[in-house]
């Protein structure tokens, strides 16, 4: 064969301890490359940190709220003129009818506390309180008709301006041209704080409560729309994951490789690029108008989390399919050969060996897909889940899928738009809850993914 002289060393011998110039250069490139990685990760984490601190610093305020405790005399002459405790009659008194009681009660508080203030008009005094106060009283009276005639101490929400004052958002100067509250009110509030009538405390109803109208930011909570999101995510998880994985398995492992499957593949990538609002158009047309209207499936109606979940499922599918297919592709063929070689069927091979090895990629797709679905608002706009919707808890678990509801991002989006700046704080607070929800939702997937990760 070749002669020995060919084997002359191309490079001179050198000590390993001395790094030669070329290696130095390559090592520098190596260090640079690694540095890029570190920079990239640091950048990513830095952005995250900035965003999170912004969110947290702006949002934590939403978790506390100012309350004013007011003893109210539930006067019989106003609430039950006939005096026979007939529920029908008591119900005839609307919330507007409770206003005088509230005004009197506040005057009484001032008198009792010995507070000094110029404000005397009932309407002006009531500006300290949320307009939810009367509703709260009326609901209480209807529940406890026997209490009519008694004096009951209520813990009312303070109005958003008062709350803003206590949280430092509202100052006396700000109120100069504000018709909702005046500086005198604040003087009164100062005295009330002193007397312990006004307190700021943790407000669970922000986390568990329902949405409130534009005029009552203090009462608004995320609880109901959280349920809306939960039900939607259940639908998405139980449909998108199995359908996505099944579709990927078919396309990657079973489908004949031909024009048609190429078309399907391109088509799925393309679906990922369809703006989410277009999925809303589809949802309106197919689920609500066709299934709900034409086919008469009662559960398929506007504002139902079931429909929202279905729309988000369709929207999430491409993400899961694309990542699952990539993960399946990455499993070395020798493993399939090994299983087929001992007489496993293709189906068994896929489910016993390939799928577990592709699990990390599938779970990543799921994590990202769900994150996307959880944060999406645009398609919900068209199927009636954005607006003033999440005002009632669903009656049961099953009706949670069909009762009108909103979703967390839609609720946050709605709050961010509302005029009263108190909603702005709640929007950020809502984002905190959303992120906690997201992390909780993903934690199982993240742990599972770590378990499945391995090299071969």
């Amino acid at each position: 064969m070749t002669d020995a002289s060919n084997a002359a060393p191309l490079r001179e011998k050198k000590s390993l301890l001395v790094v030669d110039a070329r290696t130095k250069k390559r090592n520098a490139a190596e260090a640079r490359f690694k540095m890029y990685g570190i920079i990239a990760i640091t950048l990513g984490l830095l952005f995250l940190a900035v965003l999170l601190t912004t969110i947290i610093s702006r949002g934590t305020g939403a978790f506390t709220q100012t309350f004013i405790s007011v003893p109210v005399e539930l006067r019989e002459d106003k609430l039950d003129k006939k005096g026979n405790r007939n529920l029908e009659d008591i119900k005839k008194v609307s919330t507007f009818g409770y206003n005088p009681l509230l005004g009197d009660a506040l005057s009484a508080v001032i008198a009792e506390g010995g507070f000094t203030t110029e404000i005397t008009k009932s309407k002006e005094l009531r500006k300290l309180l949320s307009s939810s106060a009367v509703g709260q009283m009326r609901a209480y009276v209807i529940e406890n008709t026997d209490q009519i005639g008694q004096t009951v101490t209520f813990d009312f929400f303070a109005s958003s301006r008062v709350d803003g004052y206590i949280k430092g958002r509202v100052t006396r100067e700000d109120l100069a041209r504000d018709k909702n509250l005046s500086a005198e009110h604040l003087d009164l509030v100062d005295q009330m704080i002193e007397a312990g009538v006004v307190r700021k405390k943790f407000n669970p109803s922000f986390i568990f409560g329902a949405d409130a109208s534009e005029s009552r930011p203090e009462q608004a909570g995320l609880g109901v729309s959280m349920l809306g999101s939960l039900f939607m995510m259940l639908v998405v998880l139980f449909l998108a994951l199995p359908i996505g994985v099944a579709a990927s398995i078919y396309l990657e492992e079973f489908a004949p490789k031909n024009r048609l499957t190429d078309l399907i593949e391109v088509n799925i990538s393309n679906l990922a690029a369809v703006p989410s609002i277009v999925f809303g158009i589809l949802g309106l047309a197919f689920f609500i108008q066709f299934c709900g209207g034409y086919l008469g499936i009662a559960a398929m109606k506007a504002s139902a989390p079931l429909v929202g979940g279905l729309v988000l499922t369709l929207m999430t599918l491409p993400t899961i399919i694309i990542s699952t297919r990539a993960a399946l592709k990455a499993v070395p063929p020798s493993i399939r050969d090994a299983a087929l070689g001992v007489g496993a069927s293709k189906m068994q091979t896929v489910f016993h060996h390939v799928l577990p090895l592709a699990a990390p990629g599938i779970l990543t797709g799921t994590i990202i897909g769900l994150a996307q679905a959880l944060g999406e608002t645009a398609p919900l706009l068209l199927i009636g889940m954005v607006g003033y919707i999440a005002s009632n808890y669903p009656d049961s678990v099953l009706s949670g899928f069909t009762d009108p509801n909103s979703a967390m991002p839609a609720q946050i989006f709605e709050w961010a738009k509302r005029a009263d700046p108190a909603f702005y704080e709640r929007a950020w607070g809502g984002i905190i809850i959303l992120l906690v929800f997201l992390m909780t939702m993903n934690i199982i997937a993240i742990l599972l993914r770590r378990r499945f990760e391995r090299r071969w």
Partner: protein
Amino acid sequence: RDNVQVAGSSTVLPYASIVAEAFGENFDFPTPVVESGGSSAGLKRFCEGVGANTVDVANASRAIREKEIKACADNGVTDIMEVRIGYDGIVFASDIDGATFEFTPADWFNALSPKVLVDGAIIDNPNQTWADVNPAFPAQQIAAFIPGTKHGTREVFEEKVLAVGCETTGALKAMEAAGMSEDDAEDACIKVRTDGLSTDIDGDYTETLARIDANKDGIGVFGLAFYENNTDKLQVATMSGVTPTTESISTGEYPVSRPLFFYVKKAHIGVIPGLKEYAEFFVSDEVAGPDGPLAEYGLVSDPELALTQEAIANEQTIASGS
């Protein structure tokens, strides 16, 4: 379906939500569901047909158009009740710490029109600062945040401010004199310059507010209610000497406002529980009157509210009513 389903304008949404909330508190009917999504989208769904899977009420920040009524009728939605709930004041506001402005429509025309009348000639708008527009103003960069063309507010702005300004400055006449047809001249009047001094806002008023926050020279167009909730950050400008308030708007002194409506499918009354009650409650004096919660929130109440109440009681539809 047991609840009243409302869709439509995001401008009307705040009022509708206040009403829906109070309705839920005071009636045994479930709280109505109020969706937002825009007047157009709401009316479109409204006109999709009659039946439990369609909405009962559409909120709109403009009157329904002829073409839409026709489209409705094609789908079997024939008896539509129109309810005007009041007026939305449109105000101009700038940063609280900035200069104070007293505008006239002419100022806005001269600031935003791509072509203005200077010394009898129509030329490209040379104005860069407000002082260029009107020497009484500070030399502050023009930075206008006006509603994008998707917003009904833009139409009002064009008609009640730009077009009026165009006329009062004499630009309209000059253009017609320069040989433009009347229509063309009117169209030219409401054009807005595109060199970056005026920014279209497709989002909502919070976005406009944030823009002013980021650019202290900015002057934005807001709804009265939004402004009234944010007096700590914004100061409002007068228009032709009138400060916008619910009173000045309802008397018609302050010129820039638009009516707000909702539309009810008559066919659903008696079938959808609470629908008629909702409509009546909405326009009741307690709610929509000048002392009601809606006015408190910033709705300019309708002086002719009694007529509206009567129309609802009689279930008067557009065809039979107007």
